[in-house]
């Protein structure tokens, strides 16, 4: 077995026991990346030299010497950060995102910045200005998005864990497509400081790994209070320690009544049945909840809010201070127009235009303001459901991994596919995307478990229970 194949927990234990050195681990991961990256194209920037310089300083802490990769919308001091957009050019942030700072302080070593949909807008990684990423399990298929690169690097075992961000499913859907575990934590659990904003009230950073226990380890480091993010939790203690023998006996786990008529791809509905059986065998009660407002309005509400916030978040890219600019504009207006016309890709542009229209004074009340009200109702819908049940079980996505290029023609179809993930962001809930096994075509199949706010650690305990039955994903042979 190669060192790069080790899970996070085993890496930490191995390093602690000095079975191998951080440098040996680094070389193994580097070699793996060298041999696979041409095929997968999961990274926008490789940071081998930076990683070496970190190792030279003998990092200490829980993750001392553990290689990791960040989605390229997290700021890294002195290292190019692009959000997969041309508009940021060669910009090197002068500061570290807090989540990365926590990891770095714990000794983690940065191997690269992962590809993503431009400004996290998309669900295939296809809107990246740096080209598409391929699913390690089937190179002809998409890895999902927007954190497709972060999911692919864990699936392909470049590194034992990575960070992504989730605004409407951008961790859970690619985790499901790539056959890894991904957690979208409760809104406010992980600091967003240094995460390049898409929809500020929906964005949340979370981890990818190949076991649930590894997610627990990452959460124990990054789920800390940060005064730099006003939406970050205060005065709450979160214990992400691993429980060897968790139980879900007597827990009520619900399916969403309104979603039962929707069509799922066969491997996904098979997985639903399989997991229901496992949960019942473990003593859980499978039941049903109704989320009428979620089912009817969540997609419209989500896009109204996300695009309204996004277009204001992207107003800062004007070519004045950083990133791509033009030097020969004859007026200020021309400069703004040329910078933004060239710098943004078409998906980003369409969302900026939509956001601008949705908040336009004459329509603002009807769309943006209405959406903020509906959002409250959606949160209430969930709160009511969680009075009766502990978790909700549902797919992370209704369909299997599409082929690259297959999905891009019908934007609305892509938006509908997010119905299983985006209500979770609207209500600020935690959602775990977990691996269930492989389809007949040897494609990984994932599902999603959702809990009430701040139930992240219980969600992970339940994940451990399921994992005992499903086993961990296999690392694809890419050589």
């Amino acid at each position, binding site marked *: 077995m190669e060192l790069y194949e080790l899970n996070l927990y085993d890496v930490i234990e191995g390093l602690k026991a000095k079975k191998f050195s951080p440098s040996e681990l680094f070389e193994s991961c580097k070699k793996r990346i060298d041999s696979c990256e041409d095929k997968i194209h999961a990274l926008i920037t490789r940071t081998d030299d930076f990683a070496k310089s970190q190792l030279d300083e003998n990092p200490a802490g829980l993750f001392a010497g553990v290689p990791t990769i960040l989605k390229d919308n997290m700021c890294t001091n002195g290292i190019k950060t692009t959000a997969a957009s041309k508009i940021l050019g060669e910009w090197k942030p002068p500061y570290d995102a807090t989540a990365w700072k926590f990891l770095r302080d714990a000794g983690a070593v940065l191997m690269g910045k992962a590809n993503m949909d431009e400004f996290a807008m998309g669900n295939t990684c296809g809107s990246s200005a740096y080209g598409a990423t391929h699913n390690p399990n089937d190179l002809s298929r998409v890895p999902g998005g927007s954190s497709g690169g972060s999911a692919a690097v864990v699936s392909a075992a470049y590194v034992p864990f990575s960070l992504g961000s989730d605004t409407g499913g951008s961790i859970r859907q690619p985790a499901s497509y790539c056959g890894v575990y991904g957690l979208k934590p409760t809104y406010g659990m992980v600091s967003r400081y240094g*995460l390049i904003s898409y929809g500020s009230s929906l964005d949340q950073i979370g981890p990818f790994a190949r076991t649930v226990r590894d997610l627990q380890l990452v959460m124990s480091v990054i789920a800390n209070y940060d005064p730099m993010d006003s939406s970050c939790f205060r005065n709450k203690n979160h214990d992400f320690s691993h429980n060897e023998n968790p139980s879900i006996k007597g827990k009520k786990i619900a399916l969403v009544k309104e979603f039962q008529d929707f069509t799922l791809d066969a491997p996904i509905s098979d997985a639903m049945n399989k997991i229901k059986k496992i949960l019942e065998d473990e003593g859980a009660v499978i039941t049903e909840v109704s989320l009428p407002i979620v089912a009817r309005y969540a997609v419209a509400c989500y896009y109204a809010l996300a695009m309204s916030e996004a277009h204001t978040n992207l107003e800062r890219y004007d070519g004045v*201070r950083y990133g791509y600019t033009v030097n020969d504009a004859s007026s200020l207006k021309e400069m703004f127009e040329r910078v933004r016309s060239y710098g943004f890709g078409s998906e980003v542009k369409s969302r900026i235009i939509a956001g*601008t229209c949705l908040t336009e004074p004459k329509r603002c009340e009807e769309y943006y303001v209405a959406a903020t009200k509906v959002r409250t109702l959606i949160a209430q819908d969930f709160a009511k459901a969680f009075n009766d049940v502990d978790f909700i079980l549902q797919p992370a996505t209704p369909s299997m991994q599409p082929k690259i290029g297959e999905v891009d023609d019908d934007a609305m179809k892509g938006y509908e596919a997010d119905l299983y993930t985006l209500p979770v962001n609207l209500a600020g809930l935690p959602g775990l995307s977990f691996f269930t096994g492989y389809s007949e075509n040897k494609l990984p199949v994932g599902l999603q478990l959702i809990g009430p706010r701040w139930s992240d650690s219980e969600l992970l305990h339940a994940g451990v229970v399921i994992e005992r039955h499903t086993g961990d994903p296999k690392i694809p042979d890419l050589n």
Partner: protein
Amino acid sequence: MAELTFTPVIGIEIHIRLKTKSKIFCSCSTNTDAPANTNICPVCLGLPGSLPRLNNEVVEQGILTGLALNCGIRPKSLFFRKSYFYPDLPKGHQVTQCDFPITSEGFIEVHDDNGNLKKIRVNHMHLEEDVGSLHHSASDGRLEGADTSYVDYNRCGTPLAEIVSEPDVASAREAVEYVTTLRRRVIYSGASDVELEKGMMRFDANVSMKCSDGRWGRKVEVKNMNSFKALERAIEYEIKRQKKLMLNGEEILQETRHWNDAKGVTSPSRVKEFYRKFIVEPDLPPLIVTQEWIDRMKAKMPEMPDVKANRYVNDWKIPREVADVITDDKNLAEYFEACVSAGANPVRASHWIRTEVLRVMNENQLKIKDFNMKPEVLASLVSRVDDGKISTTQGKEVFDYMFANNCSLDEAVAKLGITEGGVAGNALNDIIQAVLKANPDVLEIIKSGEDKKGKKLKFLQGLVMKETKGQAKPQEVAQALEEAVKG
């Protein structure tokens, strides 16, 4: 046909920079005089990924400002993003409370043209961030046509209070009184020093005209006034302009006009107003102000200047004009009250401050804080003069000596050779005889009865006073001199 009359209807928007150590959403210093772009960080530069966090001190100064304007403080307020593109605005939107502000209505009292008090209603005060400052290479200092433009973001993110009045102002004079009174109250509250020369107070005015024939002119927004004088002139100009248009039956365009201080005119804004829209700032939670917090800030509020001036007039019988002068400067008023506490007669003390203290402050370009004479010292000087131990003339000499030499009252009295209690009796008669002896011609004129207006006698009296170094009582001198002349 009766002659048409016009009533100006004016609303004023004021931006005041609040006095805080750090900026509204980050911990950068608010010192805008530092070298360009030295007080900046990822947050006030709006770098990708940075997030605002609200500075508590800004909220406290905001509450104080609200209280100074007689506003209610709202338990919950929100921040919004106000979108427009400009190089001095690094996020492409300004974070402002506009639609859901920290205060409710308030008012400021001014005098109308008949001298009666009237209320100018304050619609609200809200908190927001300032933008950076632009420096253009063009000769007219404006962006259009400049070869090069520089942006200094030191000012970006410094805290502002925007105060929006109702259209209750009826003249340029009322406008000036409104902003003067308002500024003074804000300074008293401690929320800001409002130094005008540093651009810490800026004005926009909405001017429209109501005609006696029932016509209403459209509202015109006039921008770019940075001094009381500019505000006054801009409003006067705009009133005149609109009146003329209405008299000619022409249309007044609803527009934004730019005040050109050098030319003394308003002209249509060259920069087209950016299309603005607002969404809730998703990176900041609602601002919650508890009653306990409001009470704590209320306890910090000092007596307001107009209340103070009324008290001086009513309780201490100080002339209104002197009371207004003293309360104009909070520190001066504190100095005055310390004098009174130290035992000085309020009317006398106010007079000394009005004449002597303000004189040396003006002559030496001093602020009262830098004035070296302690209020207790001035109080004892005032008392000694009051008691007749020192004459007024001597008192002024003592005052100047103490100021120039930074010494104590006793030292000054000793150095100037003043014997307390004065020159009287035989000592006075000796001096009078000496003076008469030295001026026989003058004495002759008086004796001959030609000094009908008493001018020559006054002249001798002055010589005697001079000889006594002002230590004799003028009345005694006059009496003794009269007797001596007769004798």
